[in-house]
């Protein structure tokens, strides 16, 4: 891959977005895309590939779970991380299975842990996408082999 991995972060708190952006751009070369409104992030994901998606839980308009469900539809291979306040823990845990969460991180978060999770998620996303490419290549190879086989059968039988 030639492009730097993209990290999408969604939170209705500007403070959180700026902190995460500052930390990740200090420690990594990733492209950090931050959004105050989940709808905007959905728009972005419609048109751009992301390697990991981090979202707050309680936001006006759309919960983090609803947002991550949309993200999963658009880019199933991008791991989803929920970053949430302690008070929302119960509802967040209940929703984990609904969106196939890669990780759950509680606020206030530990920066080192966040970095570890983001790195792992990116690795996973690249492996998934590579696998998808290989499978696509295999199925192309398979169908061209089938075509050759069909022609051979036609020629010799």
């Amino acid at each position: 891959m030639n492009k730097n991995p993209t990290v999408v972060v969604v939170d209705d708190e500007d403070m959180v977005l700026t902190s995460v952006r500052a930390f990740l751009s200090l420690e990594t070369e990733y492209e950090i895309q931050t959004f105050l409104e989940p709808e905007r992030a959905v728009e972005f994901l419609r048109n751009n590939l992301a390697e990991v998606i981090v979202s707050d839980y309680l936001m006006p308009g759309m919960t983090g779970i609803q947002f991550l469900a949309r993200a999963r539809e658009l880019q199933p291979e991008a791991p989803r991380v929920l970053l949430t306040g302690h008070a929302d823990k119960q509802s967040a845990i209940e929703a984990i299975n609904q969106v196939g969460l890669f990780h759950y991180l509680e606020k206030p978060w530990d920066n080192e842990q966040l970095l570890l999770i983001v790195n792992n998620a990116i690795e996973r996303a690249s492996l998934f996408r590579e696998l998808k490419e290989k499978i696509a290549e295999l199925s192309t190879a398979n169908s061209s082999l089938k075509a050759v086989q069909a022609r051979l059968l036609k020629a010799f039988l």
Partner: protein
Amino acid sequence: MVGARDLDASKMAALGSLLAGVIHDIGTPVGAILSNNQVVLRALDKLKDALAAPQPDVAAALKRLEILRSLAEVDRLACSRIGALVRSLKTFARADDVDASDADLNAELAETVRLVQAGFGKRIAIQTEFGEIPLVHCWVRRLHLVFLNLLVNAGQAIEGEGKIVIRTARDGDRVIISISDSGHGISPENQAKLFSTAFTTKPSGVGTGLGLMIVREVVADLHGGALRVESEMGKGTTFHVSLPLRQKSTE
């Protein structure tokens, strides 16, 4: 007549119901500042590396400076958030007022709203539609208690998500403050009992039954104002508080 102890009990009950949210709203910026502090130290180390290299990396240094600047901005925002909440809390910690004084009720309402909004969190959206109103000669700390009680009640009437709208307007030699909620409403028979002592439909530990009695006493008995309630089951409730601009007894 409600005594000082009842005033305190009612104030504490109302404030207590907001406490978890207020703590959360102070905790979030404190967490941001602490986390930023680590990042600032790392950024400074990296800035030093970029500048101390035999060939100083100006681009990398500038990038780190930009990060440091954004962190300073977050810290400023975080501190002003905490400061504003502490200011609102102070409003209620002060001793009761002895004399009436001129007050800007829009500003006083905004102070109460800040605290109540922190208490409710994102569950409830509070909208203010403040009209142009003159200064009102009043016992402002008692009125804070009125606003606090009405707003906390409004919030407790809403199950799940909802909205509270606060309006102020001048009406001749009076100001009208209206607080509307999108809550479950009050039945006609309960409306009749609303302002009487120790009436509550809330579970024990949530309501003292003192809140609205104090509201009535502060508005009607102390200020010579009036209270009116409009409510529809399942739609919501509006409390209208009407206050005279001047107090006859203290002029």
